[in-house]
């Protein structure tokens, strides 16, 4: 799995969970600031990402995932 594939996967999840336009999802975007994902939607994104990528993202890690790139890096490390 490449980082681009993970970002594309996250874009699909963000569209489904929070109605984010997939075209807006790029590595440097912040979930809360740029994509308007609130704290509960973020949890839904994380749970969906765990299922999609077969990784574990602990609660305590979630706060460190500020941008789409942060999340993609974390998934890449775990996968």
């Amino acid at each position, binding site marked *: 799995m490449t980082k681009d594939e993970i970002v594309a996967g996250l874009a699909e999840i963000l569209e489904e969970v929070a109605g984010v336009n997939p075209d807006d999802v790029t590595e440097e975007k912040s979930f809360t600031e740029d994509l308007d994902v609130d704290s509960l939607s973020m*949890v*839904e994104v*994380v749970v969906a990402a765990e299922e999609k990528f077969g990784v574990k993202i602990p609660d305590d890690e979630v706060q460190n995932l500020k941008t789409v790139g942060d999340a993609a890096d974390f998934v890449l490390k775990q996968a």
Partner: protein
Amino acid sequence: MTATGSKILSFGHYQPSRVLTNDDLAQMVDTNDEWIQSRVGIKERRIADGETVADMAGFAAEKALAASGLTAADIDLIIVATCSNADRSPNTACKVAAKLGIASPAAFDLNTACSGFSYALANADHAIRAGAARNAIVIGVEKLSEITDWTDRSTAVIFGDGAGAAVITLTTGDEEPGIGPVVWGSEPSEAIAINGWRPYIVQEGQKVFRWATTTVPGIALAACEKAGVLPADLGGFVPHQANLRIIEPVARKIGVNPDVVARDIVESGNTSAASIPLALSKMIERGEVKSGTPVLLVGFGGGLTYAGQVVRCP
């Protein structure tokens, strides 16, 4: 006659008259109506003034008893689920007995926080099945306003006060039992805590949200399976009223008809152990749940604890 099981005869509920709106809360902490509605789905909640936990429990129980066709003399068991009662002894159940003139019932309180009503209902069902009781009153009641930190905007917007009660009786002979097998358990965590003295509710919202949205669907489906009921055939789905953003995805995941889902949180907030009987009592009063149809109850919350069962709507 030997009991084959138990069933619910009636419900009753009580909510304080004082309404606290989101705009009211915006005067107290840094929040607003839009934020609250989008995060938890609550528009307003009821807050007790003079009423104690035992008062509210008594009012709800009185209504349930009046609607049941039984009298105070018939009741031999009272179970009260609450996590916010300030008085340790006499317990709330004994105070309810005194208020209603119930002479000598077995009377106890139990605390499993927000899952309390389903735990209490299961205990009543088990006592009746064991022959230890014939007619029970089961109550969920909370005065969460007393243990809410009104300066904490993350929790102050969530909670409310109220009570709901049900009267349970034995089933005999060929009559189908009306309270299905309980699915219950716990997963020790401090994610929701009411610790120390004087205590306030603190919660790690994201952790609780994740646990609830991922765990509750499985509990709900297990309760349906144990009762032999398909989620699509439910006449009502009454999960603990924790957050509309937990209630709606759980309902979607298990495949229940969206029209039968309890959404009392919108006007009552999260009333912990009271939320299930309060919501169901109001739905029955409005004619939204048909008598005789299966209704799925699922309590979940502090502990973390959970309990769920399918009951037949009285």
